[in-house]
């Protein structure tokens, strides 16, 4: 079985983002970028499935600027077999929308014919939580979102999902799209020898036009602003003072 894992290059999750003063977006110049944390979990799961003998090949795919090849090299160093980079933007500030990403991925799926796509449940930059579901819709496949446990059984997958009230287990027919949640696994670190080996693994470079997909945004960004700042608070000296303040504020 072949697995495709889409990975996204995003601002590192520890970086405190700065909104540009002219309201045009978030400043990504000279900011540390990394693989989206959910995508690391997706790569890890794909590699574990291969190590368990259930998967033969893991193909990592990234869509965006040329520099996304660093993210693909990271996936290759973790253990992916080969990578496809789809260049669809010239500027790091251009975020290709989930609908366009899903269309490009759908075209790649038709070329590559995988049995499974494992993706992160959301990217920590646009917080959309949509690409996996959209890809599933475009392909007419089943979907299993927010997975915290994945078991492949013949022509189906039994997936436990993190839902609002607790956990839900569903059985989906393959081919399928699985989007992963935080608790699915603990991603491995790439070792130095594997980082060196990853440089020799195949990385194919394509463009959005190769797949005939229009990446023009459907949602025009009018402005980007700072969230409202909170009023500075006070430090109280004791539990009694805390209760007194809460009573004054009418909170208890």
């Amino acid at each position, binding site marked *: 079985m072949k697995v495709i894992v889409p990975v996204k290059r995003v601002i590192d999750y520890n970086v405190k983002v700065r909104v540009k003063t002219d309201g045009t977006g978030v400043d990504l110049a000279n900011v540390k970028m990394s693989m989206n944390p959910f995508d690391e979990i997706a790569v890890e799961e794909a590699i574990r499935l291969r190590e368990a003998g259930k998967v033969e090949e893991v193909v990592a795919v990234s869509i965006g600027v040329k520099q996304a090849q660093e993210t693909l090299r990271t996936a290759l160093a973790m253990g992916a077999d080969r990578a496809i980079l789809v260049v669809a933007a010239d500027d790091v500030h251009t975020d290709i929308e989930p*609908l366009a990403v899903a269309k490009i991925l759908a075209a790649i799926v038709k070329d590559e014919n995988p049995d499974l796509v494992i993706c992160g449940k959301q990217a920590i930059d646009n917080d959309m939580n949509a690409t996996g579901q959209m890809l599933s819709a475009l392909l007419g496949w089943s979907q299993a979102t927010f997975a915290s446990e994945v078991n492949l059984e013949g022509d189906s997958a039994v997936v436990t999902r993190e839902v*609002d009230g607790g956990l839900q287990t*569903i059985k989906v027919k393959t081919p*399928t799209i699985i989007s992963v949640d935080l608790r699915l696994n603990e991603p491995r670190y790439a070792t130095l020898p594997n980082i060196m080996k990853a440089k020799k693994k195949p990385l194919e470079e394509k463009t959005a036009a190769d797949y005939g997909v229009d990446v023009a945004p*459907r949602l025009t960004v*009018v402005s980007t602003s700072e969230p409202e700042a909170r009023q500075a*608070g006070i*430090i109280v000296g004791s539990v009694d003072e805390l209760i007194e303040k809460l009573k004054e504020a009418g909170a208890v």
Partner: protein
Amino acid sequence: MAVLLLAEVTDGALAVDATAKAVTAATALGDVTVLCAGASAKAAADEAAKIDGVAKVLCAEDAALSHRLAEPTADLIVSLAGDYSHIVAPGTTDAKNIMPRVAALLDVMVISEVTGIVDADTYQRPIYAGNAIQTVKSGDATKVMTIRTAGFDAAGMGGSASVETIGAATDPALSEWVEDKVAESDRPELTSAGVVVSGGRGVGSEEDFALIEKLADKLGAAVGASRAAVDSGYAPNDWQVGQTGKVVAPDLYVAVGISGAIQHLAGMKDSKIIVAINKDEEAPIFQVADFGLVADLFEAVPELTEKL
């Protein structure tokens, strides 16, 4: 303009708070028709008809819609979509599962977690874990979106809309439900609670999490947790507050033993009053707290519980 709103229905019961908050947002866009779908949805439909501002309720009862699996539910919504300019749902895990599928089937973008409606085409939504607010204008024919319910007040329950029974769309039979593991809880539901008490890594163990629960019970509060507390097994995952868990905006949020990482703040920084109890005076949580107490939680929390 007409709005189709997917009601949040769980095991035949309407999640009134989430649905009523989404109705408030949707009434700004046009006449609201609420869709209640499930294996049993009649009681939920009758309840939804009482929400102020609802013009009509559609009730789709079918075994295929049981547990609202994404594929049949999305097909049902798409089959109705022609009559509506906007398709809206509260931003629950159910809706996040279904709505992007609906949008792609209609070849439109989805607008996730809307916090503000500027006009019928223009919306505000948080990005980068709530560290920036983006205003977007949609050029799509149909607007498909989820509503961040914490940002809207619940509509009242004085309405009397008509209820119409409809059939399900065909079942693509791509998936089936196996089982639910529902976390038992007598406390208020986390996303709609007026008071939330949350514990983090500082609580130290599952046993000591009882301290947090006692304080919560005293305040009639829901219990939340940071990712660290959930990953360490102190609390179940559906208690997680943050970018990847639940987003809450109660009147009072008490953070105990939580440092205040970006990802946690994303889920609670719109709370009206934030109280932080932490022994580390440098903890980032104190930068957003209205009232901070630098103290050992094992002394401060029992004292607070007793004196309240």
